[in-house]
């Protein structure tokens, strides 16, 4: 698993790539919590995620809840097929805000 963090159009974008599983989800969790400290408008790009397990999903849930409690935005973008099916299985596909891309998020209004 690799990641890349970038700031773009006022958002903090975290691109995740590869497998988010028991071996890598602690890293993803820490990365997200670190990012959230600045209360950013956080978008997690899952388009290159080839695999995600329940611990990865749990990290996303924790990040989302923390964002909500501090009143900042948290959304998933470009959810890959692998990630989508797992989110559906977790019945979380209706819980997270999900956009196809940053562009689609921008169409939904400014921050």
């Amino acid at each position, binding site marked *: 698993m690799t990641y890349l963090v970038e700031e773009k159009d006022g958002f903090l974008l975290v691109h995740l790539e590869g497998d988010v599983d028991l071996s890598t989800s602690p890293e993803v969790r820490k990365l997200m*919590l670190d990012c959230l400290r600045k209360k950013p408008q956080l978008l997690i790009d899952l388009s290159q995620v080839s695999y995600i397990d329940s611990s990865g999903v*749990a990290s996303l*849930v*924790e990040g*989302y*809840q*923390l964002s*909500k*409690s501090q009143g900042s935005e948290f959304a998933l973008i470009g959810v890959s097929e692998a990630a989508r099916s797992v989110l559906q299985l977790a*019945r*979380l596909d*209706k*819980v997270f805000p999900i956009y196809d891309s940053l562009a689609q998020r921008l169409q939904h209004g400014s921050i």
Partner: protein
Amino acid sequence: MTDQAFQAVIEVEDLVTYYGTRKILDRVNLSIRQGEVMVIMGGSGSGKSTLLRHLLALNKPASGSIRLYGKDIGKYSTRELQTLRKRMGVSFQNGALFNSLNVEDNVAFPLREHTQLDDNTIRIMSRMKLEVVNLAGFEELMPAQLSGGMIKRAALARAIVMDPDMLFFDEPSAGLDPVVSADLDELILKLREAMQVSVVVVTHELDSAFRIADRIIVLDKGKVLIIGTVDEVKNSDNQRVQNLLNRRAEDVEVDPEAYLKRLTENLAGL
């Protein structure tokens, strides 16, 4: 009294029940005819188990009535109800078998409780029922030694040991694999043929419901969505019925906020 009502063994009229202030059943009407297999379906929380308890006269309606053999349950004396219950064989989902008793003693239990029969007679009757459910030769085994399917069949043998007029099953195929579940369905149909009993089955297994039902009642949030034959239910254009047939669609309807809260409550840092 119409012909149909005359043949009905149980009639439910405008049944309403509450659990605390929550309405569980809302004006349910249903009649169960002599010798028919009635399947009660619905998602979790639809009220199907509550309806079953009312059919067994275990719960008292808040309003409406339940008639057993044409007479209001409320008008039976306690003693009469006890006698009636002996004519009802029940196989509950979890109350399957006494773990401390072997198979034969499990099956014999109702006879020992409710009759003064000689023990030899009781044992022979029990073994006859074990024959019927294809468990001959397993009398001495303890429940822990049986497979899931065998446990269900033993429970079935116990349910019929008093030669009931009515048989009630709560989720008979829960936890069974499809092949074993199909076998159990066959057995239920065979018993109906042989004993001319009315059978009421609560299940959420569609395959099973379609195999055994003469009629199906579908409950949704305490209300009757439809009562009809297998074909009538399959061909229903009611969206909620179709959702149920296409299984789980309703289940997926979660309240996002509440779900997120459940997942994250009492966690450190949140």
